[in-house]
């Protein structure tokens, strides 16, 4: 009971405080307008919401397939090999690299050669940050699938690669999806790596080749500004960010839970 309270309390406290500080600034304008110049009232974060969605989509497109393939390799094909140990070690180190260092790395690898900040580079950095979480949870979840299930498939004359994809990965898929959601939620709030890559944008750009706005960036800029109006918008932005993460996670859970039968474990 106490531990339940201890686990839930911080989340509830953050959420309640965000609602208290941010809800009053939430209105239709917030979701439809772009930021107004200092001194003008109103304005919203429509561009940042869209921008975050684009960045996270690009990031997931990069991070989820690479991470899942890496996890499948670690658990199913590379077990015990030197290459697998190297991959696992790399993933763990990557997980520990501070996000700002990731940002600088992608800045020097993509932004500098291209000569400009871009949504693409922001998506790349988020994608790279997703890889280790997705990879390692995929591996863990696959290792939890009992060997008897693999043997059953092999004994039916199913080729190994097919058995892995159609049976083992499918059996582990609820856990793998949870891992992807964890990674997604984690990078959704990343600010530091985006400073050097997506950069932020006060306009409504949706082009991958141009700088793009993002909720965490916008919150950061507004929160350190000296204007009360911007502070209120920053709180509202934080509230929206949290709600979008919860929404995205719930949606994926709902979609993937349909079709999985009751009684299946």
């Amino acid at each position, binding site marked *: 009971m106490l531990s339940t309270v201890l686990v839930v309390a911080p989340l509830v406290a953050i959420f309640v405080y965000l609602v208290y500080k941010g809800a009053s600034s939430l209105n239709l304008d917030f979701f439809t307008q772009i930021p107004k110049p200092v001194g003008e009232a109103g304005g919203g974060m429509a561009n940042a919401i869209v921008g975050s969605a684009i960045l996270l989509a690009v990031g997931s497109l990069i991070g989820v397939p690479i991470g899942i393939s890496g996890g499948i390799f670690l658990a199913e094909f590379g077990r015990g090999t030197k290459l697998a140990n190297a991959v696992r070690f790399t993933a763990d180190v990557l997980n520990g690299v501070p996000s700002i260092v990731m940002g600088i790395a992608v800045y020097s690898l993509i932004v500098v050669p291209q000569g400009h900040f871009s949504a693409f580079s922001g998506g790349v950095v988020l994608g790279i940050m997703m890889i280790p979480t997705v990879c390692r949870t995929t591996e863990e979840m696959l290792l939890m699938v009992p060997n008897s299930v693999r043997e059953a498939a092999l004994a039916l*004359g199913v080729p190994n690669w097919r058995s892995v994809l159609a049976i083992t990965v499918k059996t582990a898929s609820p856990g793998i999806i949870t891992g992807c959601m964890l990674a997604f939620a984690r990078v959704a709030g990343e600010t530091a790596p985006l400073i050097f890559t997506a950069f932020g944008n006060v306009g409504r750009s949706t082009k991958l080749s141009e700088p793009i706005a993002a909720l965490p960036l916008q919150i950061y800029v507004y929160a350190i500004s000296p204007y009360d109006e911007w502070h209120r918008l920053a709180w509202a932005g934080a509230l929206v960010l949290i709600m979008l993460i919860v929404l995205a996670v719930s949606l994926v859970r709902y979609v993937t839970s349909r079709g999985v039968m009751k009684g299946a*474990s």
Partner: protein
Amino acid sequence: MGVGIEVANLNAWYGANHALQEINLNIPANHATALIGPSGCGKSTFVRCLNRMHETDPIAHVTGTVLIGDLDIYKDANPVEIRRRVGMVFQRPNPFPTMSIYDNVAAGLKLNGYGNRHMLDEIVERALKNSALWDEVKDDLKKKSGASLSGGQQQRLCIARALAVDPEVLLMDEPASALDPVSTAKIEDLIFQLKAQYTIVIVTHNMQQAARVAEKTGFFLNGRMVEFDLTHKIFTNPSDKRTEDYITGRFG
């Protein structure tokens, strides 16, 4: 129809452990053959050599010859192909947990790219009837998951899954050891019916079971096959002193 199995000079290892030594025997087609012996004697390893499952363990290897019908399985066939001709039922029921009853039975065909829906329906029905499970599950084939069945039903589901790919040989590795007596009796009845169509090799701990279902019985001890003969001869008048000691309960 089933085919006979000829095994010559079969040796198998797990790492440095010489698990099977110089096994020679002929298993007759369309009969049930039982393999008995104490735990760790190599009987399970032996059946896993008959469909090349033994080598799925990276530290395992095999030498010798196994002929399934006229196919030399260690020489001129790939393991995946062989496992379609030699089905296997394991000690613990292992249905695919995320699949419906129907999909469990159809899995072997679907995963090998067999997509004709009408034929699949027929094959699934026939396999479930052959494994005496049809009447119990026909109403919720696609509604219930394989994992929601009872242990005995799950094991018959696994038998149906093996039968659906239409093998010539059915290997059963202690198929009833995790089941209650009623389910065990059902599996034994099933073996009786199935040997009309398939060659059956059953590993068992239970000597009464071997006596009930099998025409021939082999006794394994410490990685060697001590004796292989007609079942009633093994149980009434064994030629080897060690067989006699085992079946009279002096060890094992």
